[in-house]
């Protein structure tokens, strides 16, 4: 599985109320190219901090799912945050690590993740759902299975490919502004675990209304 395809697969599972934090380098650039949205906070600098930002969002916005997408080099810089996340234990946090065992954004130099089982680190840190996947189908399945089981950690093994065709993220203040505005506009005061469940509840409500109106008539 290539990085671009992995991010495409992730994007297909992003609900309309999910917030996404993407990390430094090609991951943010690919996400911008695949599905730019006010739901995305592209963190282009401060390598390693995507997971910390995701945690801050998740604990303050517990009515929506927060999806963190980062690389192996990135999580290796801030592994302490895995403990912070597991300790805070936000049910609505999904932490995705795309692991190509390389610093692909800076020329493909090897990281140390080949000899470190990051999924075991996540499990030992205290994540409630942990899965390691190697194909798009497995990734798709684990994105579904992790629903409502956060803090969840998915380690997706991907190929090193070095492709850098996606555009650079440039308008940082604007990205922040629209992300904040989107969060504000879509903050739902009614508790629901995620958008899918909310959708399901809405559908049920419609069915119930239909049923009651039929009964009344």
């Amino acid at each position, binding site marked *: 599985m290539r990085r671009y395809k992995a991010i495409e697969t992730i994007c297909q599972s992003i609900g309309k109320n999910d917030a996404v934090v993407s990390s430094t380098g090609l991951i943010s650039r690919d996400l911008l190219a695949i599905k730019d949205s006010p739901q995305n906070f592209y963190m282009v*600098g401060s390598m390693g901090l995507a997971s910390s930002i995701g*945690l801050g969002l998740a604990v303050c916005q517990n009515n929506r799912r927060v999806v963190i997408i980062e690389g192996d080099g990135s999580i290796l810089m801030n592994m302490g945050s895995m403990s912070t996340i597991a300790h805070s234990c936000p049910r609505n946090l999904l932490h995705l690590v795309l692991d190509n065992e390389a610093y692909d954004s800076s020329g493909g130099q090897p990281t140390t993740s080949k000899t470190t089982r990051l999924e075991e680190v996540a499990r030992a840190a205290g994540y409630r759902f942990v899965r390691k996947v190697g194909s798009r189908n497995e990734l798709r399945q684990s994105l579904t299975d992790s629903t409502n089981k956060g803090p969840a950690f998915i380690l997706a093994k991907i190929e090193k490919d070095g492709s850098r065709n996606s555009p650079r993220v440039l308008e940082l203040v604007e990205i922040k502004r629209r992300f904040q505005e989107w969060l504000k506009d879509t903050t739902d005061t009614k508790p629901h675990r995620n958008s899918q469940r909310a959708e399901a509840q809405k559908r049920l409500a419609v069915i119930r209304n239909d049923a009651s109106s039929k009964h009344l008539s």
Partner: protein
Amino acid sequence: MTSGFKGSKEKSSEQKMIMAADTFCTSLKRNGVNLASGVPCAVQKYIIDRLVKDAEIPYVQAAREEDAIGIGVGAYLAGKKPIILMQNSGLANCMNAFASLLLPYRIPLLFLVTWRGCPGEDAPQHFVMGRATTGLLEVLGVPFSVLSMENVETTISNSTHLMQEQHVPVVMLIRRGTFE
């Protein structure tokens, strides 16, 4: 007699620090602060003890200072007004978070940073960063001021106003002895 006298003196000193921490936290709340994260410093012991007990300002323990900044940024994006607590040794860990996250995205975060390494410091590991602290903040373009027990309310209020007006992080430095 002597030991009894000493005991009561220590107790009154501790009471004083608890009251000082209370004044600080009350002022934070008055200025809208509603979340805290950081890495502990002995000088801030009473403040952290106070925050941990305060349901209105949840305290998220971070693994390192940059982690705390990330948590603060997430909380800010979600509409909160966080404060980040650390020692200046930790501030040195955070230069890139200031340079490539807080400043270019114009994210206002409030900081309480213990200024170790001031004249009178006995711990040699703090000497260099003690000398460099204000210079680093100046070079980065981060406004700062020194908070003391006499100016708690004005320093917090001025800092939060500056954050709102200029969308920049603002640092409040405290010297040893302010809250300990």
